[in-house]
């Protein structure tokens, strides 16, 4: 008898709560654009933050509200951008994917060390406490803060003490760019493949003392560039990618071998894995 009353009262309570919840969900329903859910489905869901928003759902909301472009996800590249464009009903200009390029070749063999660093194995920690152990104040410290920051496992520390980017895994999210205390990593598209792999603004003799593959600011590349795409800025060659035709003349002329075609060069470049098709 007592079990029956318990069953009845529990059943009645369940019925009342169920009905009121059902009514409330109808009455208090929030209209959410169905496209947000649809975009969420096609986004990678890694919540890497590479887009600049707090995760994939925030980006989806921003795309629908018009605060972000359909190409907002740097990880998904053009394939996802196209799907999002279809959901949003807009045209999507095929954006060329970007990859992280490490613009320093100062490996252990090439770049001199100033002292024996024994502290925390992290580039920024080394930079702020001792200025970095390399003689070159611009070059890679080789402690792998970029590798640790990569959410996609696309970076690894090579035997020479320089980070290696695996283009097959690199999504161009830019986490490594932010992690590098010396701003040595830049995002470039596959076609922007000719790069000066040195960031030293030091004068030639100082560069020679610090590193055997650093830009000495001689200007040979700028003089020889048929497209006038190279400018010498503060002892460093800077390539205007919009003018570069990838003829390769600068690479040939550079006495320090610090200009590289990331798409063509194999062993010399600090890049491994599959090369992007260009």
């Amino acid at each position, binding site marked *: 008898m007592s079990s029956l009353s318990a069953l009845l009262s529990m059943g009645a309570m369940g019925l009342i709560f169920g009905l009121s919840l059902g009514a409330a969900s109808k009455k208090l329903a929030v209209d959410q654009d169905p496209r947000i859910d649809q975009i969420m489905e096609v986004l990678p869901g890694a919540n890497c933050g590479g887009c600049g928003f707090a995760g994939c759902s925030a980006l989806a909301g921003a795309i629908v509200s018009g605060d972000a472009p359909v190409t907002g996800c740097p990880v998904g590249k053009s394939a996802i951008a196209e799907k999002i464009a279809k959901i949003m009903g807009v045209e999507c200009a095929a954006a060329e994917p970007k990859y992280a390029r490490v613009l320093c070749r100062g490996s252990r063999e090439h770049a001199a060390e*100033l*002292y*024996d660093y*024994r*502290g*925390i194995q*992290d580039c*920024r*920690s080394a930079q*702020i*406490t*001792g*200025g*970095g*152990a390399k003689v070159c*104040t611009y070059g890679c410290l080789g402690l792998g803060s970029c590798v640790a920051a990569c959410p996609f496992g696309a970076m690894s520390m090579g035997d020479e003490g320089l980070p290696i980017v695996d283009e097959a895994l690199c999504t161009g999210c830019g986490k490594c760019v932010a992690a590098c205390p010396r701003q040595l990593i830049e995002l470039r598209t596959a076609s922007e493949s000719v790069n000066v792999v040195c960031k030293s603004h030091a004068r030639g003799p*100082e560069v020679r003392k610090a590193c055997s593959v650093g830009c000495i600011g001689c200007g040979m590349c700028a003089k020889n560039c048929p497209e006038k795409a190279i400018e010498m800025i503060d002892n460093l060659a800077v390539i205007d990618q919009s003018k570069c035709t990838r003829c390769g003349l600068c690479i040939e002329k550079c006495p320090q071998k610090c200009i590289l075609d990331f798409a063509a060069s194999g062993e010399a470049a600090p890049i491994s894995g599959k090369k992007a098709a260009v």
Partner: protein
Amino acid sequence: MPKGSFRGGVHPPENKERTAALRTVVARRPSQVVVLLHQGSNCPLTPTVARGDHVRMGQKIADTEAKWGVPSHSPVSGKVASIGLVRTAFGAQDQAIFIEPDGEDVLDESCVPVDNVFSQPPEKLIEIIREAGIVGMGGAEFPTHIKLSLPPKVEVDTLLLNGAECEPYLTADHRLMVERPRDIVRGAQILMRAISVMRTRIGIEDNKPDAINAMRDAEVSAAGVEVVPVKTRYPQGSEKHLIKSVLGREVPPGRLPFSVGVVVSNVGTAAAVSDRFDRGLPLIERVVTVTGSAVATPMNLIAKIGTPASELIEACGGFVGEPGKIIFGGPMMGMAVPSADVPTGKGTSGILVMSQEESVAFKEMPCIKCGQCVDACPMRLEPAFLHQWSGAGLWDEAEAYHAMDCIECGVCTYVCPSRRNLVQAIKRAKFEISARRRAARERGGK
């Protein structure tokens, strides 16, 4: 807790006996002086001389418009050889003026003593101190004129002179107190006038009885000045801890000593002030303790600011064996420098050369949660947790655990049985938190 002490801290081997009883010696004239253009504060200075110019000793050679900056003066008379980059004690490269001494040491005509010091208004005294390029000489190189320019509505009643010199090995302040106590008291009187207080306390660790006696003999002549011996315990020379030990007042987190009515100044700074007013000399030389097991004959040297460390070490008979590490400052808070060519600065109180056997590298082991760092931390922080937050990049948590109150004294790293790089991790956290605060201020300012 005994009087004259504070919670936490350590008492490492003092190692002061090799230089504590040695009279300071004037170092021979350096073959080159390198005056950094980043001295004293973070404001970069602009050179007021050019390459090839002849400069006289004490002549102003660099200055800045910035409020926080202090000028630099030529420590010698000679020719400006060049203005270029030099490797500093912090490992980075910085602009500096290179001067070749001509051996004459002709004093600049601007270097004249100040008459009627005590009839000058305080603002005038502070201005003279700034113009003399005087910064805190205990090591932090905090500009003295900023310290003395108190914000309005701040009530200060005591000047506290810091003669603790708690860092092992260093005896520069010790010797200064033994040899020039009257100049220190004179400097204190000028500083008292500058901040309008009637009371000075001089805190000295009780392992320096000769300095305490010398300062007591000198103090008799001055009203309101009193020597207070404090317990020998590191970091007694941290200003917040010295205030606690001498005056029993506690500086709240994130606040400065003037919030408890105190201005703290190093005894070396007081001597530099008296040099300016009584001898006309701006800050161009200081006492540097050159010591360590890899130095042949350790000495206390009066060295021109900007002398390369190698020349001072040579004056002390050079290295014994292969040096393992050269440290600017003491072993607890000093910076290991990348080479012996690094020039000394206004805050370089010591050059410590350790042998290779002494400068062993320890492997960082996992934290065993023993809590020794927490017990030892004189700021009552939890270094083990701060290291964790810092390692994981959790700057908000590090800030909530008061990372910004860390004085970087190194006690936690000293006691850690797992040899963890606690101070470095906290320094990193402080750097990131400061950067974020700066960014927030800039966003707010727009």
